[in-house]
């Protein structure tokens, strides 16, 4: 017979305002096996934990029920406290009377009755609990960073700094990401390339960092500390270790009409290319979609001009399997497609551009060598209209419901830089709200208005109509309460940003959760912002939510510190709540093996003694407790009831259900 203590938490007023905690403690004190029952204002506090520890000692408790918040929040806290007081941590059960009771009910009588029932269920379970001891598993001391933008770069550098090996997998031919396309950074206006490219070089030169460029993750197996990842190295038709990056091939290639994605299609590159001068690795890549040799077998100019003999038209995609202890997702973002915003004439006029396109136009390495010239006729624009929130904060189904966060600041930057370099250009910014919460951010925006004379207009553009060589911008000015018609030479749309399309399939591979917008979800929005709920998977940069560069870099370093904290451990304590097969009941059907997402179940041939002194060899399931994550899929799949989950056995669950239904 268990001797059970019940501890009812008020959670300040979170629980106590809706649940009569004294009544709950009193009611549960009469339950079978309960020898002590009390309530306290904050059970998770040091004083509250001491209350539990003292009761264990004074009353010789063998089991503990805490009626409090979700076990996700404090189960570990109470388990640790009980372990210190000398009872097995798995003899603790939590009755969630906050998230599942006080927060969702209004009526105190009903909520109190429900809290008592939840407490009874937990007591019924503790009666069947058995002490469990956790095993350990080794940690592979290497990290994988998926995505080579500024987030991935910073995370990799920080992990390597601590002495661990890091691999970066980048799907493009070079690392650098979106930041490499940016001209200047707010609010200091320092040159993006000047601060990014040295970091790219640091990555390339770091002996602990290995870059898999032009590569993608194609499969992930295993669990925290022991991931096995398959990396697909796409054929780039150039031997990476031989190519010197001289660039001769990229000048001689006769296929000149390939839209240059680095400049967002505003100019052309060749079929063999190096994305930009500071690319890392500085290696050429052949675009198989446009290469005449690969498509027709004729040409071969690049092979002829390559003195290093690096061209290899027969290269094939290569699959590499590597082991990692931790995985960091840094897959970043993209501006949305503006096909659902044709009222702004994006698809009808080349002079309506996105902000990222504008960034390339003003970049010295861009299609106009940094001169502000409009795409249609190469003329200097004298009136530019910036439109904010194009597709952001949009619940109509065309765009994204969230604020993209970075647009207010980069638009202020574009407007300011335009006015600084070309004072003869009138600049209008249409805004709904100007959101500048960041260090020196609001001051920056105000400078655009006060020092540079940018016209900020509260209102939204309703229509952009190309007419002759002008763009007729029809918009509202809400403060003047008038409709404006501005004849502009260029219109710049601050397109909403969205997670990279590769994130969704990757999340499936990692069993990492995402929100409805395909941003990765963090383990806790405030207290564990860089960890995914999936152990061993960490989040860096805009894959978790819209972020500017300073925030991305902070989060990237934070993710690295979490990875380092994991990799310094030699062993990890496993979850003891794992599956267990009753070999006498197992009929060898393999149903459990098929549903196990972790590959934790294997089948073995085992000898069984029969009553008549003979032996019988039977095929039975065997669970590897180090690999099992305790998801319970096998217990449901098992037709003979042989599979059970320690700590969540069928008996325990049924006892809880019985207690609730009694």
């Amino acid at each position, binding site marked *: 017979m268990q001797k059970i203590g019940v501890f009812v938490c008020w959670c300040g007023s979170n629980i106590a305002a809706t649940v009569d905690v004294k009544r709950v403690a009193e009611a549960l004190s009469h339950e079978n096996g309960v020898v002590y029952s009390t309530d306290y204002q904050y059970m998770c506090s040091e004083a509250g934990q001491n209350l539990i520890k003292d009761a264990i000692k004074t009353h010789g408790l063998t089991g503990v029920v805490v009626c409090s918040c979700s076990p996700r929040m404090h189960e570990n806290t109470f388990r640790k406290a009980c372990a210190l007081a000398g009872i097995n941590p798995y003899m603790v059960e939590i009755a969630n009377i906050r998230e599942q009771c006080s927060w969702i009910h209004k009526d105190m009588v009903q909520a109190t009755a429900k809290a008592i029932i939840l407490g009874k269920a937990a007591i019924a379970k503790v009666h069947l609990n058995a002490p469990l001891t956790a095993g350990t598993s080794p940690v592979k001391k290497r990290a994988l960073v998926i995505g080579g933008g500024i987030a991935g770069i910073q995370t990799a550098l920080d992990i390597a700094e601590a002495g661990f090996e890091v691999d970066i997998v980048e799907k493009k031919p070079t690392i650098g990401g979106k930041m490499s396309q940016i001209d200047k950074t707010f609010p200091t206006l320092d040159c993006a390339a000047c601060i990014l490219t040295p970091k790219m070089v640091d990555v390339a030169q770091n002996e602990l960092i290995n870059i898999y460029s032009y590569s993608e993750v194609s499969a992930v197996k295993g669990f925290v500390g022991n991931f096995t990842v398959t990396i697909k190295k796409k054929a780039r038709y150039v031997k990476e270790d031989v190519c010197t990056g001289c660039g001769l091939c990229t000048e001689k290639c006769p296929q000149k009409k390939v839209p240059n994605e680095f400049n967002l299609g505003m100019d052309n590159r060749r079929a063999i290319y190096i994305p930009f001068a500071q690319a890392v690795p500085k290696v050429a890549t052949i675009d198989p979609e446009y290469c005449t040799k690969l498509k027709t077998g004729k040409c071969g100019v690049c092979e002829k001009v390559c003195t290093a003999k690096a061209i290899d038209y027969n290269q094939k995609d290569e699959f590499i399997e590597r082991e990692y202890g931790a995985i960091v997702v840094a897959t970043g973002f993209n501006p949305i497609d503006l096909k659902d915003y044709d*009222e702004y004439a994006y698809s009808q006029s080349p002079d309506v551009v996105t902000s990222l396109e504008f960034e390339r136009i003003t970049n010295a390495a861009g299609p106009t060598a940094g001169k502000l010239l409009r795409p249609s006729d190469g003329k200097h624009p004298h009136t530019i209209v910036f439109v904010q*929130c194009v597709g952001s*904060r*949009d*619940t*109509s*189904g*065309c*765009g994204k419901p969230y604020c993209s966060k970075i647009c207010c600041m980069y638009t202020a930057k574009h407007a300011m830089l335009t006015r600084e370099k070309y004072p003869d250009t009138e600049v209008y910014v249409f805004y*709904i709200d100007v959101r500048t919460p960041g260090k020196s951010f609001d001051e920056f925006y105000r400078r655009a208005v006060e020092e540079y004379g940018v016209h900020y207009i*509260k*209102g*939204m*553009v*309703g*229509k952009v109509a190309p007419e002759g060589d002008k763009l007729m911008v*029809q*918009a*509202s000015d*809400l403060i003047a*309460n008038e*409709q404006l018609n501005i004849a502009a030479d260029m219109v710049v749309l601050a397109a909403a940003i969205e997670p990279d399309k590769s994130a969704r399939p990757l999340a499936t591979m990692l069993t990492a959760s995402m929100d409805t917008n395909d941003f990765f979800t963090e383990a806790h929005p405030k207290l564990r912002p860089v960890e995914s709920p999936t152990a061993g998977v960490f989040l860096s940069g805009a894959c978790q939510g819209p972020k500017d560069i300073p925030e991305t870099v902070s989060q990237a370093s934070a993710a690295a510190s979490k990875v380092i904290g994991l990799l310094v451990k030699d062993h990890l304590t496993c979850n003891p709540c794992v599956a267990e097969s009753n070999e006498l009941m197992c009929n060898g059907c393999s149903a459990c093996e098929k549903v196990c997402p972790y590959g934790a179940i294997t089948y073995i041939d085992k000898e069984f003694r029969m009553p008549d002194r003979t032996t019988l060899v039977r095929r039975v399931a065997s669970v590897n407790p180090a690999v099992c994550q305790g998801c319970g899929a096998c217990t449901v799949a098992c037709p003979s009831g042989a599979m059970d989950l320690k700590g969540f056995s069928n008996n325990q669950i049924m006892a809880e259900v019985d207690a609730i239904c009694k």
Partner: protein
Amino acid sequence: MTELQMKEQVLRMSGVDPLKCMRCGKCSGTCPSYDEMEYHPHEFVYMVEKGQISKLMASDSIYKCLSCMACVERCPRGVEPGKLVEAIRLLAVRRQGANHLKPDDIPAMLDEDLPQQAIVTAFRKYTK
């Protein structure tokens, strides 16, 4: 009817939730009748939210809306200001003797090319 009752009726008839509005003003940026109106589409949304229905009913603006649905189509929040204008106009013309268009006035408005469509539409829009 009190202002509050009228507001509730307008919300019920139109099915519009003005609280979804984020006050971007795109409706007024896109409205082809903007310059003819005393109150503009975004003001309709805000004034309905504040319960100033009789002010809107008394304004000529309700007869200047062309029901072209540009504001409905382009609103990033799915607020549909045009439906609010219509509901308020209906509330106005349904009052006794408040038809905005009188049958006796029609002959003077006709010309040989005017399509029937214009007359029936105007009747649907302007009368109960």
